[in-house]
């Protein structure tokens, strides 16, 4: 009974972490693709996107099966350390944004900036190389973070198939929403999503680093939930303590 609860805890946190990480990165990638499409035409923008998606799929196809063959404890140790670093970087950024030290990630501003720089480039005849490259880079760079989350979380939990499926659903959902609402992606509470992903990545990182070093966690996998709650509380306190007086006045989340 306890083992079933523990296993489902890991699965739920894994699904949430992959879904949110994929969604937040997809919002960023989609903003760039929509800006390229509106400014320079959809053909080259979609071609760049398609090639980037194929390159990302190839990364998963190459590294996924290879990572599955690595013994579990060394894999969890390395993945745990990478997730700790990655997750702590996300949390740091989210705390600094909420506390008013760094500007909030503004999709509208990014859209306008991308549009302005693309308009400054001369129009190409036939296939638009600039549009292709900007769309490819945007999708590939944001997508790499999704691939890292999928591969590290999926292989360490022995649920690579589930992680890939959840990421694909998140990417498809955001793409559909993006098509329907066009430029309204700025309404997505990106900092809150990034903060939630950071909390889950650090929790998994802590848990798997411990597993890799033969630490016996009290309550086994259920400890993952305790870590999620602990880190969420720490982040809430950190935002309150670090908050700038000016951020208090403007009501930063």
């Amino acid at each position, binding site marked *: 009974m306890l083992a079933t609860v523990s296993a489902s805890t890991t699965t739920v946190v894994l699904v949430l972490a992959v879904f949110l990480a994929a969604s937040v990165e997809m919002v960023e990638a989609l903003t760039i693709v929509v800006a390229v499409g509106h400014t320079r035409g959809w053909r080259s923008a979609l071609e760049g996107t398609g090639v980037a998606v194929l390159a990302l799929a190839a990364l998963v196809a190459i590294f996924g099966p290879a990572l599955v063959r690595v013994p579990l404890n060394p894999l969890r140790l390395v993945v745990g350390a*990478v997730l700790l*670093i990655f997750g*702590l970087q996300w949390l*740091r950024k989210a705390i*600094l944004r909420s506390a008013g030290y760094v500007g909030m990630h503004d999709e509208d501003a990014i859209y306008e900036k991308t549009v302005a720089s693309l308009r400054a480039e001369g129009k190409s005849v036939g296939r638009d190389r600039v549009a292709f490259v900007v769309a490819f880079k945007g999708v590939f760079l944001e997508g790499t973070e999704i691939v890292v989350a999928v591969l590290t979380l999926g292989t360490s939990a022995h649920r690579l198939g589930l992680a890939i499926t959840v990421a694909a659903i998140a990417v498809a959902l955001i793409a559909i929403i993006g098509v329907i609402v066009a430029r309204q992606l700025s309404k997505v509470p990106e900092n809150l999503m990034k903060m939630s992903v950071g909390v889950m990545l650090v929790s998994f990182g802590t848990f798997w680093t411990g597993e890799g070093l033969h*630490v016996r966690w009290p309550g086994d996998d259920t400890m993952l939930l305790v870590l999620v709650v602990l880190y969420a509380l720490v982040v809430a306190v950190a935002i309150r303590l670090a908050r700038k007086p000016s951020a208090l006045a403007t009501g930063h989340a």
Partner: protein
Amino acid sequence: MNAAASWFGRVLKGFGMFWWDFLVGDTPEITVVVLLILGVVALASEVGHLNVLAYVALPVLAIAALTISVARARRTKP
């Protein structure tokens, strides 16, 4: 042969730069504390067989890494 070696060198450098940016970037303090975590927890768990110390030290040091990094950023972004 030279062209191939130079292409391979560029790819290798690009790969190294990607991982450096990804794991160190502008937050070297986080990487250093995570390496410290690995050392402390390995010593406590594998050498000293101090399981409680290992599972307490892990999250405590992770929180310390976050605190140090946020404090450092606040100093540089007044």
